[in-house]
């Protein structure tokens, strides 16, 4: 089912949380709403399922305008951040609840619940109560309950926030698998860029109630529309250097660096302020344009080492390099470099050139 949000505005009292938002979730795709807390992503989710009222704008499910349809009749599956399992019911009763409310026959219920349990791999847990389940299992039950009615869309509100690191990794691929197998349209709300990048077909990145960019994950990582997006995506995060255009070059005085502007970027007039985004994988020993500095911190991550490099003006660049038997120790002076083609160029307002 395709979901269309048209001119959505939401206010809490005098505060406008979301202003005139437009968004389309395509049939069968998983779309992430990604943004820092308070950016309005959960409000958008709750507007789709009908828990939050829209002050202005409309929602369409396919061709149908459901703006004024009660929540109960929208037939949307929601997985809440806390899973919101019913603590006094068994797993089977939890999953069956949406069907018993509809007064389905016992056979139908049993069949459908069984199918769902199989889909999310919890066949052995049907008689347990929620408090006897691990976080990941509760997550699976919540997913089964949300899907048992064969809803038109699945909404996930920070589904991995309550899991530990190991389980998060596992449930990431599990949720994605279930979504792909059922072919359902899904919206994922998250503040974790890794989750958004790894689970979804497209990401809509939000800030202060506005959608900044909608794009495929790899595309958004490589071609962020502004510096906020660039700094939000990527782990370890990007670092920035400030410079000024001078004769087809960007001059960064603080570190005595002069970089040619790459060919695919239109050279701005002399004197324009420019912000350079340097991702850790693009600040490397063998790159030509050297930016000398001192190692201030070494993070050993097993497979790779992350170096924090203090430049002479006090700013910081990060470099990630394959693991080495003898990593550099803090205090070492290094003379690593960058390549202009790999850097991101932003103008004063933060827009990418």
């Amino acid at each position, binding site marked *: 089912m395709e979901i269309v949000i048209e001119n959505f505005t939401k206010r809490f009292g005098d505060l406008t949380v979301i202003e005139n938002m437009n968004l389309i979730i395509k049939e069968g795709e998983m779309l992430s709403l990604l943004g820092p807390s308070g950016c309005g992503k959960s409000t958008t989710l709750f507007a789709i*399922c009908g*828990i939050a009222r829209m002050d202005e704008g409309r929602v369409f499910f396919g061709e149908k305008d459901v703006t004024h349809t009660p*929540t*109960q*009749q929208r*037939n*949307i*599956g*929601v997985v*809440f*951040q*806390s899973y*919101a399992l*019913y*603590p*006094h019911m068994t797993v089977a009763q939890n999953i069956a*609840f*949406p069907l018993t*409310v*509809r007064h389905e026959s016992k056979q139908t219920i049993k069949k459908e619940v069984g199918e769902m349990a199989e889909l999310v791999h919890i066949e052995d847990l049907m008689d347990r109560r929620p408090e006897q389940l691990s976080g990941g299992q509760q997550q699976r039950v919540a997913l089964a*309950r*949300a899907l048992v*009615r064969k809803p038109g869309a699945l909404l996930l509100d920070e589904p991995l926030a309550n899991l530990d690191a190991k389980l998060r990794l596992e449930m990431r691929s599990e949720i994605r698998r279930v979504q792909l197998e059922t072919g359902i349209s899904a919206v994922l709300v998250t503040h974790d860029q890794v989750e958004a990048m790894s689970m979804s077909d497209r990401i809509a990145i939000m800030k202060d109630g506005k959608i900044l960019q909608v794009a495929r994950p790899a595309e958004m990582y490589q071609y962020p529309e502004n510096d906020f997006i660039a700094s939000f995506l990527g782990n370890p995060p990007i670092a920035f250097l400030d410079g000024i255009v001078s004769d087809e070059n960007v001059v960064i005085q603080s570190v005595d660096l002069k970089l040619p502007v790459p060919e695919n970027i239109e050279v701005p007039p002399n004197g324009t302020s420019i912000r350079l985004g340097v991702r850790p994988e693009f600040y490397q020993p063998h790159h030509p344009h050297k930016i000398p500095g001192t190692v201030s911190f070494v993070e050993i991550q097993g497979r790779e080492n992350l170096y924090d490099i203090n430049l002479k003006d006090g700013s910081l660049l990060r470099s990630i390099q394959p693991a080495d038997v003898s990593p550099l120790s803090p205090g070492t002076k290094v003379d690593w470099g960058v390549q202009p083609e790999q850097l991101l160029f932003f103008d004063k307002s933060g827009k990418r050139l």
Partner: protein
Amino acid sequence: MSHNFKNWPIVVGLTIASVPIIFMYVFLFVDTVTDTLPGEMMPNRFTLEHWRFLWENIEGKASVWLAMLNTLIFASSVTIIVLSVSSTASYALSRLNIPFRKEFLAGILMLHAFPSITLIIAIFLVLQMIGLYNTLFGVILVKASLQLPLGIWIMKGFYDAVPWEIEMAGIQDGASRFVVWYRLVLPQVRPGFLALGLFSFLEGWSEYILPAILAPANEVQMLSVYLASLISDDQHFDFNLFKSVGLFYATPVIIFYLFFQDKLMNIYGGGTKG
């Protein structure tokens, strides 16, 4: 962390504080089945005479069994009213954006701790006016309304502890507001519901002032009033009889407590431990 603190002084202190109370109850019981000569401390013979009120009526008074039945009806009715009203009203208070909600809650609290003696004369007049003076029905209504504020507060505490998302999940699953309340929320406040029920029943059972003033007649008399009337009867005051009736009256309460203390404790947890 216990090794940072010596706790034997506390144990000793608590024991010293509790022993006299237990001692008192043991003595009370011994007194009711023995006779003691005036001026002596120790009982001299075993007797069931002080328990005679169980099988014969005391002069000028109704049967103790009738009083017991009245007390039972009173306590049960109060319980039912308190439970049904507070389980619905407090849900509304906990969940809905009613205007003046805060003021209303403060009002409820004020009503609860208002000195009842100043209220009682007004209540007395009202009951007499509408013809419910000296009826069980009247005193039940009064007691129930005096109990309600606390009941609503307690249940509200339990409702507040039920996560908002569970209700939203229910709505999302297609259930109506009523089904959500009845099938998803109510089962989770069950500990509070049970505790409040027990508490109301025991409160009703122990009530003295209201029945004494609003329903003193023999045929609607309750055990507490029956017991008190034994003292006020100056001519035939039988101290041991008084003790036996007292014990008879207190026994169900003690048994109730011993069986249900854990449920009652939920009230003090205010839902957080429910």
